[in-house]
Structures are given as structure tokens and as C-alpha cells.
């Protein structure tokens, strides 16, 4: 997918000035966010589960080559095919070639964020193959020719009215004013697609190394349809999704689902191990697993970023993030939005182009608190800021303005000693003179004008604390 990470400010501005998007984002706090808090509170020993999940993720990634080879052996043993894709293009080529070889004209898709990385729908269309998204949210987004707004709720920025208008325009159906009718219409539209499709493409929430099993977590049933109806099932996923044993799934399903929607479990959890058995009535005749690197090995190689690969893609950090809840998913400009996206998107695309993402955070820590595997996102944001500023591990991405460097040099001098603090106090008071009214500053010139547009700024005190210290308590 084409990256627009450098347009963060424009995207954020557009979301902030769109009252419909603001209204739809407002629901996240009392919706998914509160549901996650309630679900984790109700789960016995939640924190022990988090620690265990984190330990397993750390172990698996620290030994990723070993576990991926185990996946490979077991997928093949179960009668499936496996392809390791270096990048998005290689993954797309594999899928497109497979579809062409088998004469596929229609592909149905379950939710897969990695296929967004690959811009797979676009590639299939170029080859004359029709891809149809079947997750309701993804279907809406595909009809609207947009990208997902949220990892688990792709169309949450759209109101029912907007969805109705979209359906009228694209599907030539009457205007519906309730969500049940909209959903039924989507079901009816998609039913025939499921019947006709020659290939089903899904993501994978987990890959079990020991058994070569792909696990899918869904609520709508489209994941089951994609893995039951067409003759070929292709699962595409990032290489970080491996867990060692099938016995680890209980733990990870709890962590993922409770953090994502607050449900105790989703409507459907489906495990796929190879194509259908010889004597089975139905199910695909071919199973392909495509495991994608696409830049993940960069994060694997960097000890400061490896934990970003622990991510279960539950979306809890998005819901918890007060910045995401203002700017929404499109502002981030690539597949992964929100706090984890601010790490992953720059690393999988271009760090310096995505410079705004690590900086557009107050470091409030709500993401870290929400994460089911305790990923320390603020720490990594600070690290990426350091890299963008000082360029130690990624010198080619060092990107710092002269103005900022100069300002920091000035700051550094002013805090270099008590004497310099006093001197800066004096200097600051002289500079602020034209702006101060009644101990407050109403308006400052650029680049501080954005601040004073919405807030007053305090004036520098005429006597700093260090001067007053001796006289405290003396009247």
C-alpha cells in the first residue's frame, strides 16, 4: 500500500474538522475501551496471563527461525503449501500467480491487515481477478474505495446514513435507515460471492508451530465461509504471528479477544490445519500459507524495537489513545494506525517520511496500560524520536530542523547552571514584556501561536523559586 505517512498533519486536520468523524470516534471510549477494561477486570489473574503471553512471544521471536521452520514442516506434513515472502511484492506475486494458474476469477477475502500492506486487492484487479472483502466493515471500506480506519473496526468512522448512501450508490439498492437492513443487504450481496468464488483469502491471528495450524478469530462468520466454501484457501500473515504449541492458544485467545472487543470469546474461533481431509464432506482442496516479512526483520534485528512484534493486533491501544480518538485511523497514512502503528508503520515504510507518527503522542502511556502483552510503546516512541533526531542506528533517517536544534542548544545553555537559569529568567522576562497582561500571555507569535489560540500562557515569574527560597516562612 502506498504510504501517506508524511501527510499526517493534513490527515489529522481533516479528521479534526469533520464533525461526523469526531462523533463516531467519541464512541470508542465508552465502547471498546471500557469493554476491554471490564473484561480484563473480570478475568482471574489477568496480569499473570499478560506476563505469560509476553514471555511466550519474547521466546518465540527470539527463536523465530527455529519456529518458522517448524511451521514449514508441519504445514507440509498436513498437506498444505507454504511460501515465505521477503516483501509485499513477493507475497502478492505468489497469490496472483496461484490464482491465475488455477483460473480463478473471483476471490473472497476475510480480514487481513497484511493483505492491506500488499495492496493485494489492487494487484488482483490489475490481473482481472475480482477480490471481494467479506468482513462487513472491510466490505464497506472497499465499496467506498478507502482504507481501514481501525484494526478491528475498519468502517467505524462511517455513520449508518453514510453507509446507506454508499450502498445506494454502489449496489443500486433502496435507502435503508437501520443497521439490521444494511447488514442483511450486505449478507445477501455476499452470499452468492461465497458460492461462486474459487479462492478464499484470510489472515491469521495465530500460527501454531507445533501443528502447522492457522487460527482465525471472527464474529461474523466470514472467516468460516472463506475457509469452507472455495476450493482453495490462502492464509496470509506476518511472520510474528507464530506461537509454539496449540496448548498456548487458550491463553492468547483470552488476551486477544478480551482486549479487542471485551467479549469473553468471539462468535467463532476457527483452526485450519492443511486442506480438507480425504473423507471430509467439504472444505478446500488446497491450503496455502503465505508468511510475510516485509520489513519485520528490521524490527526483529533492533533490540529496542523487537517487542513491537509481540503485537496481537487487538486494537486496544488505538481505543485507549486520546490522540487516535481525535485524529482517527486515516491520518496515520498507512495500514497500521494508532500507538502501535506509530512504531510499525514507520519501520515497515520509511522512518523519516513517517517522522510525525512517533512525535504525535503526548507519551501519556494509556497504550502501554491497555496492551495485553504489555508492549512498552512510549519507550519505543522515545527511541524512534531519538533516532530521528540523533540518527544512531538509522543515520540515513536523521531528520531534524535547524530551528529545533538551535532551540535545544538555547535550552541546554539555559539549564546548564543555576546562574544560567537566573540569566534566562531575566532574558525571558524582557522578551515577554510586550505580550504580558495581568500575569498571563494571550497571544504569542509563531511557532507558539497555535498554543495561545486555545490557551493562555503564564508569564515568567519576576522572582523565580530559587530567589524566593530563603524567604519562605519569613513575613
Amino acid at each position: 500500500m502506498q504510504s501517506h505517512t508524511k501527510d499526517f498533519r493534513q490527515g489529522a486536520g481533516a479528521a479534526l474538522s469533520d464533525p461526523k468523524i469526531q462523533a463516531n470516534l467519541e464512541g470508542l471510549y465508552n465502547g471498546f475501551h471500557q469493554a476491554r477494561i471490564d473484561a480484563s477486570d473480570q478475568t482471574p489473574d489477568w496480569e499473570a496471563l499478560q506476563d505469560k503471553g509476553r514471555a511466550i512471544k519474547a521466546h518465540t521471536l527470539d527463536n523465530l527461525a527455529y519456529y518458522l521452520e517448524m511451521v514449514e514442516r508441519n504445514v507440509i506434513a498436513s498437506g498444505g503449501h507454504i511460501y515465505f515472502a521477503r516483501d509485499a511484492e513477493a507475497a502478492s506475486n505468489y497469490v496472483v500467480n496461484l490464482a491465475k494458474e488455477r483460473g480463478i476469477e473471483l476471490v473472497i477475502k476475510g480480514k487481513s491487515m497484511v493483505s492491506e500492506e500488499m495492496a493485494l486487492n489492487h494487484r488482483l484487479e490489475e490481473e482481472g481477478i475480482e477480490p471481494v472483502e467479506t468482513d462487513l466493515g472491510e466490505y464497506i471500506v472497499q465499496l467506498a474505495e478507502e482504507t481501514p480506519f481501525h484494526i478491528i473496526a475498519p468502517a467505524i468512522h462511517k455513520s449508518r446514513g453514510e453507509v446507506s448512501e454508499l450502498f445506494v450508490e454502489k449496489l443500486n439498492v433502496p435507502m435503508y435507515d437501520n443497521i439490521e437492513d444494511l447488514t442483511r443487504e450486505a449478507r445477501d450481496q455476499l452470499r452468492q460471492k461465497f458460492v461462486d468464488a474459487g479462492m478464499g483469502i484470510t489472515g491469521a491471528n495465530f500460527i501454531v508451530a507445533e501443528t502447522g495450524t492457522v487460527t482465525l478469530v471472527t464474529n461474523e462468520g466470514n472467516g468460516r465461509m472463506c475457509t469452507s466454501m472455495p476450493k482453495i484457501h490462502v492464509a496470509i500473515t506476518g511472520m510474528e504471528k507464530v506461537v509454539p504449541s496449540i496448548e498456548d492458544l487458550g491463553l492468547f485467545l483470552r488476551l486477544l479477544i478480551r482486549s479487542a472487543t471485551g467479549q469473553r470469546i468471539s462468535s467463532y474461533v476457527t483452526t485450519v490445519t492443511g486442506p480438507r481431509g480425504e473423507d471430509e464432506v467439504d472444505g478446500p482442496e488446497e491450503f496455502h500459507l503465505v508468511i510475510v516479512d516485509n520489513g519485520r526483520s528490521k524490527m526483529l534485528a533492533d533490540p529496542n524495537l523487537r517487542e513491537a512484534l509481540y503485537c496481537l493486533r487487538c486494537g486496544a491501544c488505538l481505543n485507549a489513545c486520546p490522540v487516535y480518538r481525535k485524529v482517527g485511523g486515516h491520518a496515520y497514512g498507512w495500514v497500521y494506525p494508532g500507538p502501535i502503528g506509530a512504531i510499525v508503520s514507520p519501520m515497515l515504510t520509511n522512518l523519516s517520511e513517517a517522522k510525525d507518527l512517533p512525535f504525535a503522542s503526548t507519551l501519556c502511556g494509556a497504550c502501554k496500560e491497555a496492551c495485553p502483552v504489555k508492549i512498552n510503546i512510549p519507550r519505543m516512541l522515545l527511541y524512534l524520536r531519538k533516532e530521528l533526531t540523533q540518527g544512531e542506528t538509522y543515520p540515513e533517517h536523521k531528520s531534524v530542523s535547524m530551528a529545533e536544534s538551535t532551540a535545544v542548544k538555547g535550552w541546554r545553555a539555559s539549564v546548564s547552571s543555576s546562574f544560567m537559569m537566573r540569566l534566562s529568567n531575566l532574558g525571558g522576562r524582557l522578551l515577554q514584556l510586550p505580550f504580558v497582561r495581568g500575569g498571563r500571555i494571550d497571544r504569542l507569535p509563531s511557532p507558539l501561536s497555535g498554543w495561545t489560540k486555545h490557551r493562555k500562557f503564564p508569564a515568567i515569574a519576576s522572582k523565580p523559586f530559587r530567589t524566593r527560597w530563603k524567604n519562605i516562612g519569613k513575613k
Partner: protein
Amino acid sequence: MTERNEFFNTIRQALGPQTEAPNLTGTGSSALGDNSDAVSARSQAIQAYIDEQSGPLMDSLSESATGAGWKVARFDDLDKAGDHIVGIVRDVEANLVVRSRQDVLESGIVEAWLASLGVDVVPMALGEHSEHTVDELRSLAERADIGITGVDYAIAETGSCVLIPSAQVSRLVSLLPPIHIAIVQRGQVLPTLDELFTIRRRDFLDGNLGSYMNLISGPSRSADIEYTLVTGVHGPGEVHMILVG
């Protein structure tokens, strides 16, 4: 160098020097460190537990399944359950019912129950007794009003039915019809997800994992538009769990 080897080389370089076979102890993973005997022992202990606690586990399932959105009904025996199912079929004026060929349904009881209503019952399985091809079965499942299945397990923690498709169990019976009725028998209820996956690991080690498994926990649902919960998106919108015994 092949693409595959190049892929693995990149990963090995990213990981740096390390041993090929990781030390599995102390990772917190419940998993691969154990040998097959340990898994067998755990499975046997689970089996003993669910037999002994079958009553309380049914009670607990009844509660969690209701919470998950199942319409739960409990009966002492299959005959009484049959009356209830006849009632459901009559209420929705079903014309065509598909069923799995699990043991609990294989004595022809569904056909017997529904005979009085004149409803067609099609067992969804291939084999010597089936008069239908795969394609015919699929189109029957698409047209069916109700799908009736047994279960392999149920899970008290989450209110889930576990269906493991096989020669006798189609993936589509519990998926395509708008109504799914699942019959759970005493002794099939596991306490939590963890017991299920231990048993499945035992199955894997015995070569019996199979290709597919579904945990079904309530109706098909979506909240993709305005966070508003809607049921019956692609899977059944109405689901009945019938507890027997």
C-alpha cells in the same frame, strides 16, 4: 540462493548468534517442553475431571452459553429434547433441515422427531447411505432453514460448542442455515479453553488433529456500523444449545 533460504538468512541475521534448538524451560510456555507422556497424563486427568464434574460443568455452561447469546434449554433425555426441537422447527415453519451424522443423531432420531411435521431432513455426509453428491449437499445446506448438529465438546468458560468436521460432520451444517441447533450431552463439557487445547494436542500427537475445528460461541454478529450489535451476518443469527442429561 532460493527465496526461502534468503528469507531465513535475513531472519538469522536479525536474530544474531544463537543456538538452533532453543531452551524451552522457563519460557512460560506451557507447551513444547513437555513430552508426549506428560500430555497424555494431563488429558487423562481432564477426562476424569469432566466425568466427575459433569453436572456442575453443565450448570456452568448453561449460564455462560446464555451470556454468549445461545438460546439454552436443558432436558433429562433426548426424547424430551426432541419435543423441544420439534417446537423450534414448527415455530419457524421450516421446510428443510440439514443435520450432521454424529453419533448422537445417527439413530435417525431427528428424522423421527420431524416426521410428523413433514419436514425433509438431509444428513450432510458422503458415504454409502448418501444419495447426494457434494455439490448437491452444498446447495441443500444453502437452502436449509435449520442445521442440527451434535458437538465434540463444549466449554463452560466461554459458552462455546466445539465442532470438529470429519467424515461425518460437514463444515456447513452449523454455518449456512440461518438457525443452528447444537445438542450437548453430559460429559462433553470442558471447564476452559485450556483443557480443549490439551486434548487437541493429545489428538495431534496421536495423529488425529484433523484439518479443521470451530469454536462456536453464540450467533454470528457484527458491530461494524456505529458499534451497534447486529446478529446473523454470514453465519446463523439464531442459535440453540440443547443440553441433554
